[in-house]
């Protein structure tokens, strides 16, 4: 019998990514940097202060998880937290470009960052694809010398 690994329900981060994408897209459509600020606050709290301050995770546990069956696998909490941290950096940068630096850079630069966050979050939420993880494999390949090949 397979030993159950410690970790989190992998559906939780995907739920959070769906909410992140929704908020980022809403901010863009409504042209409301205030929504981006709320998003930055939520992502920052969850990634910097830890799971207790992760509103997405708490929402999932309270509202969604009771409706689902137990997860088939469990996930290490580090990658989703890293992704949340990256999202926080991107959204914060977008806010800076749309706020203090608005006189120096075009608004589309800030919104492009917000849309990037939305796109990647949507990708992760809908398909479970972790762009960072796949890049990681490619980087490892690039760093390695090729194995000797023999004629077929």
């Amino acid at each position, binding site marked *: 019998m397979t030993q159950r690994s410690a970790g989190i329900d992998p559906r939780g981060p995907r739920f959070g990514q769906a909410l992140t994408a929704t908020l980022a897209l809403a901010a*863009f459509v409504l042209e409301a940097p205030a929504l981006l600020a709320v998003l930055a606050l939520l992502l920052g709290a969850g990634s910097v202060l830890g799971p207790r301050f992760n509103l997405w995770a708490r929402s999932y546990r309270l509202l969604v998880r009771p409706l689902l069956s137990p997860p088939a696998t469990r996930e290490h909490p580090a990658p989703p937290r890293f992704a949340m941290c990256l999202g926080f950096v991107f959204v914060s940068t977008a806010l800076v470009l749309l706020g203090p630096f608005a006189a120096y850079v075009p608004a589309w630069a800030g919104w492009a960052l917000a849309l990037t966050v939305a796109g990647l979050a949507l990708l992760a939420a809908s398909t479970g694809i972790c762009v960072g993880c796949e890049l990681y494999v490619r980087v490892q390949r690039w760093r390695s010398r090729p194995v000797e090949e023999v004629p077929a």
Partner: protein
Amino acid sequence: MIGVTRLAIAATVLASAVLGGWTYRHRTPNRSASERQAGRIDPSRLPNEAGQPALLAFTSPLCVACQRTPGLVAEALDVGEDELTAGQAPIELAKVDVTERGDLAKALDVRRTPTLAGVGPEGHVRFVHEGNPDPEALAGRLRAWEVG
């Protein structure tokens, strides 16, 4: 007032992310040996016991889905996971960490983890499957390979 242009851009981002991701996930996960750049690899470079066919399970640190691979392979071979781990199954399952054996990952064109590769006793690459295998499909493939 919501701009139509902004709505259109948001809809494009939504559609691109979902459709693009779905297409990427569902592209043909299996690549035959003929599509491999390296049709055969020096057996001494492989982590499995020399002279024996093996399944190479490419993994990476923190790869969640990789945890399920041994169980699915055991199911395909109709053995217990403990037997598979102890080397008592008809074919050896060798885990390959791409951070330690990036050379193998490059030779077999491993693009993501988990990836399962079937390698013959002389190092011939029989198949490469991205993602976790379906046990029934893997069982059929192994029967065709006359293993298990």
